[in-house]
């Protein structure tokens, strides 16, 4: 099927090409300097990966530009999208800063009961410990029957969140929680 593009911005056709600046603009000479003429966009030649804005529910399409070493260069609006036609709001324009950000916590932080400080911990240690605590709480609070009715649930564990991550992730979380007997499963959709 032939690909049709809505091009509200007029930029789509130039994307990814080295459109050189001409010597003239209409009837007038182009006064751009040699340096300007030789400048290339940072994303020039980079791989464009199709992604989606993680903020609101409009679902603006984005292009994440990645260089050969796997480094993220920039995130821009996808001009092909019928939803946003290349545009992004201030939040969407700042997606890059959400991922590449030296204030981001990229390690496990652990706070022991009654402790006054965080400690960094190995991931595997935390995962083993969390699984053990889930089992322990579930086993201590699981109820098979209430008032003569089978309920097979635990009210001792609750889960909150879902609207900020994907449908596959929601599915696995729900599937696992339901099978543990957790009923207090909620996300931002009610909030």
């Amino acid at each position: 099927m032939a690909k049709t593009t809505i091009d509200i911005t007029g930029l789509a056709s130039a994307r990814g090409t080295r459109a050189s600046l001409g010597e003239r603009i209409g009837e007038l000479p182009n006064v751009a300097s040699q340096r300007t003429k030789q400048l290339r966009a940072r994303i020039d030649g980079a791989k464009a990966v199709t992604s989606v804005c993680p903020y609101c529910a409009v679902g603006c399409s984005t292009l994440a530009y990645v260089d050969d070493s796997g480094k993220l260069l920039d995130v821009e609006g996808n001009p092909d999208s019928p939803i946003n036609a290349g545009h992004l709001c201030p939040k969407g324009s700042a997606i890059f800063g959400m991922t590449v950000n030296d204030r981001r916590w990229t390690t496990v932080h652990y706070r022991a009961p009654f402790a006054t400080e965080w400690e960094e911990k190995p991931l595997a240690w935390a995962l083993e410990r969390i699984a053990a605590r889930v089992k322990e709480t579930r086993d201590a609070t699981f109820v098979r029957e209430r008032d003569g009715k089978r309920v097979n649930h635990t009210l001792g564990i609750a889960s909150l969140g879902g609207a900020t991550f994907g449908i596959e992730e929601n599915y696995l979380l729900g599937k696992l929680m339901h099978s543990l007997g957790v009923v207090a499963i909620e996300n931002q959709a009610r909030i």
Partner: protein
Amino acid sequence: MFSGWNDETKSYDTSNWNFERNDDGTLRRDETLQHPRCVLNVLRRHFARYTPEMVERVCGTPQKEFLKIAELLARNSGRERTTAFAYAVGWTQHTTGVQFVRTAAILQLLLGNIGRPGGGIMALRGHANIQGATDVPTLYDLLPGYLPMPSALRDEGSLERYLARNTKATGWWANMPKYIISLLKAFYGDAATAENDFCYGYLPQLIGDHSVLPTTFAMKDGTVKGYFVIGQNPGASGQNAELVSSAMERLDWLVNIDFFDNETVSFWHREGADPTKIGTEVFFLPGATVLEKDGTMTQTSRVLQWHDKAIEPIGDSKSDLWYFYDLGKRLKALYADSQDPKDRPILDLAWEYDHEDERERAAGEPSALRVLRELNGFTVADGKQVAGFADLAADGSTACGCWIYSGVCPDETTNHARGRIADARSSPGWGWAWPANRRTLYNRASADPAGNPWSERKKYVWWDAQKREWTGYDVPDFPKAKDPATPARPGASGIDAHSGADPFIMNLDGRGQLFVAGALADAPMPAHYEPLQSVIENPLYAQQSNPLLREWKRDDNRYNRAVDPDYPYVLTTYRITEMSGIMTRYIPWLAELQPEAFCEIDPELAVEKGIANGSYVTISTALGEMEARALVSGRMQPLRIGKGQRVHQIGIPYNYGRMVGFARGDSPGDLIALSTDPNVSIHEAKSLTCSIRPGRRAARAAGSIEAPVPTAQQRAYGAGAPHGIDAGTNR
């Protein structure tokens, strides 16, 4: 008040809120619209008192403005034109939230704006996958595809009872058994057989309202011991945020997945708290951002859009999928030797999502595509993808994780969510919309009863008399070969009972409903009630606020009284374009644009209170107080409402938190006591009352918040080995 009120149970008997039917089960109709109980006439009588003058008294909207809008809507609706209603949480976050949306449905049905291009009611939802998290729900009362969660309150203890209660004789929900049984096959695989009711008994049963606000109280009162909070920050953005934080002090453990430090995970060292008295064990797991993982999000028009992983997760960060998959595998291992029947659901859980790619698999990475393919569904015998939900069966021969998503991966090689072909109309090649890639629901209504477009200009889906099929610019939301002249067949099952002119296939009778038959707890037709905390008496009824709203009168959840002279101003909340919450507050570009919490007040109030633009003010309610800089703005206007009172409004952006981020400040979550609507447990955060004064609030002194008595578990872990490591794993 409507008929059927029971003052003892404080609820309505809704059995009389129903349509009159003929002996064959069909609706009684009066084509002349003269019968006094014809729904249109019931509606006319009900809304007779809702005059433009009354609109002005209730809302403060001048009659002239209101009439201008009403005329515009009417003029812009008809054969040649359509009008859309778009709403966000400004409509829903009320103790009457559901009825706001219902009102729009009535208007759009009457104006002929449903199922047509440019029409409809658009929920502008808040988060990137909030629609997806409703379709494939992490919501207590739903299973995927809007199947109800089994409830002991409805005696749904057996599959037979569940099917009897939830399968409808007519309309699309006659197909319900196929969807729940295919879901159980997706959950429990080979273990789910016809003999054991497809493991229906593995699903937990509800015993009440387990939504987030009641759960917060249950946490505070000690019932909830462990809490997962993922990509959400109720410690700042929650209503009654201090209640949320103090409730988390009672937890044995808290697991938080996020990108940044936040008010929820750091609740134990918030202002006024003493960490040495708080026994909760807290885990922060670093999450991968959207750029660091594959997967799908469903945007607000039901369009699924797959995103490719652009870079590897930074540091130890992992996707939520990775964490959930890993936790499931660990729990399966921990329970591996168990003979206890309560552990069977975990042992029988179908949990094979290893990545197709060898390198990813070696890193423990699950495959989002495999999960999406399970959501689409497959034939159990050969594992082949089903083409759509029409292929699903109720005999256990098919498995499907979410029937409305069936068709997104219809064969072994296609992932429609990855489609990126746009066109100038409905772009059916861009992503994939549920159900069956329909971009506009109920689009049969875009043609007249005979199947012809209402106008050339608004042509969308129509009956092709030559080919004898429905066709058009969208996937018809109707049986493809059902002739518009097909008569209704009383007694037939499913949508075969409907005529060829009945577009609303999900409803029992195939028709839109101006009157809601029994489905809502508080009203069959919308009625105006004042918010729980209002500055005026209800001008319409003696009943001040929704008689069924839920409130929690407790010391940690104090309300302003209705029409309380101590709190004379209207308080409302909203969000700003440059901020979301914790996902933006650490981004320098955005922090420069919106660096700090503020509130908007009108110039008249500013003069009256001596508040300078940019100065600090303190806003207070019976629950608590917050400070913010004042933005004196003509955007906020005093209202003349009720008996002619002039009322000032104060608006507060709901984006900030006071502990972390470059952009920070107090949250209106400290002002809002919890209350909910009776239908979906949505809280009221848009229409409240408050007081305001110049100057900053007093800081809470360290240790000023009384910590609860630690639980036995907290004491055991805290006092044992350093960080309680050994005490946990070996028990």
